[in-house]
């Protein structure tokens, strides 16, 4: 075991992969409690798939990949915050439409360029092992923005998730903060796509908070728990990935699913125990 850990932490691949992976784990854990509290998990599915359109655009117009994808994802997330309110379409249906539409655009754009340019498997399922220094800079910049927004608005967002009407009546600029929340979720999603890929990103943004939900009793409580689950899941997943040569994103999501099952079973057992007393 000790040998394995030694090998794991000393391998050059992991030394490159661990910093961005842990940074993303920290950011996603923090945002995931907002995603779950605001019931925005479908938004993260929508935005992550929509980022394919951004990647398609970047490939077609030879723009830098991550920035273009980030801009597209944020634009789509903001559109989803504005569109349903104005036109009387519910958020669910709006997400479904934009999600399919932008994914279709992405597929068309990518298929019309030469195949060699795009690592499609990496895009769909993620590959943290190929983070370039440029990507790392983008992830750092994005993380700083997300952390800053959490420090400023976490409490207001929490209040809005609990009761939107009362939040507005107690003097919160709810429309503006909702837009910012959507934008920050968009940004987080793009950073995750590098780690977990388009298809698995939602897992990173839902599972940590879902694990914590059984045990948390307040916002800070949930945040600590979510952070612990996320870091353990990411580390454990990368170890699996290293040991068995599994794709890193999938291994992390699987580890988080295992943690969720344990957390759920433990809370069920606790309930049974309390009932029997």
């Amino acid at each position, binding site marked *: 075991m000790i040998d394995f850990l030694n090998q794991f932490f000393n391998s050059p691949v992991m030394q490159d992969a661990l910093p961005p992976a842990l940074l993303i784990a920290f950011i996603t854990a923090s945002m995931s409690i907002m995603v779950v*509290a605001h019931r925005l998990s479908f938004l993260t599915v929508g935005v992550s798939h929509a980022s394919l359109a951004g990647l398609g655009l970047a490939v077609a117009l030879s723009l830098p990949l991550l920035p273009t994808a980030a801009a597209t994802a944020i634009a789509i997330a903001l559109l989803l915050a504005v569109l349903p309110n104005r036109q009387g379409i519910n958020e669910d249906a709006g997400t479904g439409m934009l999600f399919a539409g932008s994914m279709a655009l992405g597929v068309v754009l990518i298929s019309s360029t030469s195949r060699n340019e795009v690592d499609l498997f990496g895009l769909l399922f993620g590959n943290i092992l190929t983070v370039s220094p440029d990507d790392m800079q983008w992830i750092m910049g994005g993380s700083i923005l997300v952390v800053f927004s959490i420090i400023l608005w976490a*409490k207001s967002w929490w*209040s809005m998730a609990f009761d939107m*009407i*009362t939040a507005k*009546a*107690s*003097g919160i600029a709810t429309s503006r903060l909702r837009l910012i929340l959507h934008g920050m979720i968009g940004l987080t999603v793009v950073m995750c796509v590098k780690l977990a890929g388009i298809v698995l990103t939602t897992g990173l943004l839902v599972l940590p908070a879902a694990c914590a*939900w059984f045990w948390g009793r*307040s916002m800070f409580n949930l945040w600590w728990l979510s952070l612990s689950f996320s870091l353990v899941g990411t580390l454990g997943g990368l170890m699996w990935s290293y040991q068995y040569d599994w794709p890193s994103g999938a291994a992390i999501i699987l580890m988080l699913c295992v943690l969720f099952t344990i957390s759920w079973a433990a809370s069920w057992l606790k309930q049974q125990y309390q009932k029997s007393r």
Partner: protein
Amino acid sequence: MSTPIISLSHVRFGPAKKPILDNLSLEVPAGHFMGIIGPNGAGKSTLLTIIAGLTKPDAGHIDLFGRCLNSKTRISLQENIGYLHQKHANQPDIPMRVYDVVTMGLTSFNQPLWHGLFADKQAEKEAIHHALTLVEMDSHIHTDFRNLSGGQQQRVRLARALVRQPKLLLLDEPSAALDSPRQEKLYKLLRKLCDENNMTVLMVEHDVAAITSYVDSVACLNKQMHHHAKKGETIPDEVWREMYGEHVNIVAHDASCIGCMPSPQNHSQEQHSQKQHNHEHHHD
């Protein structure tokens, strides 16, 4: 005369041809407890959302605490308003203790996280305890909000509205989830807050008979203000008919309450049993 807490002049909401509220003017002084009654769809809740700054009226002017309510002043005016709405059907499933729910009502809550490092925790704690004591929920302070009954949740929400010690309290059917002893306690508490803290309360209720011995006045609303009865005045039968329709069956009430005494000629015409303690509005 001191500035009124609420001053509405010619407020309209909805299209000019088919307004939801029309030509509404109203002044409410400090320390006044007003009940608002009216049939379903009369615009009672809309009126509260307009005063709370949640909905913009299509015409007219609103002053709160002597300051004009508009998009620029909304947030600072709202610091002095406590508001309890009635759309609690789909509350999300967030783990929160009663204490945290009430904390969200403090005006200092919506601040950046670093604010928490410098805040006066003891004062906040006392304010929260006090608000929960008022609604008799202090023994549940560490309970998970989701595990409370509907009535208990309603009382915690009321504590959340009260914790900032608002000058103006807007309540939309606050008694909906409460049993009748609890309702009485609630009205008594509101009366006390008006008398002792000079708080102004505007409360939408359906049951005029239940509130009448506590409030200072009753406003009858159906698109327009049909009548505004002060303590000791009656609401004429025509007003009831105008509000609820021709087929309303007016039942006489305990003579001591506002708005419920039948006027003398109706009293003889409609041979109803006296002292019966509820209204029968057969509206659709």
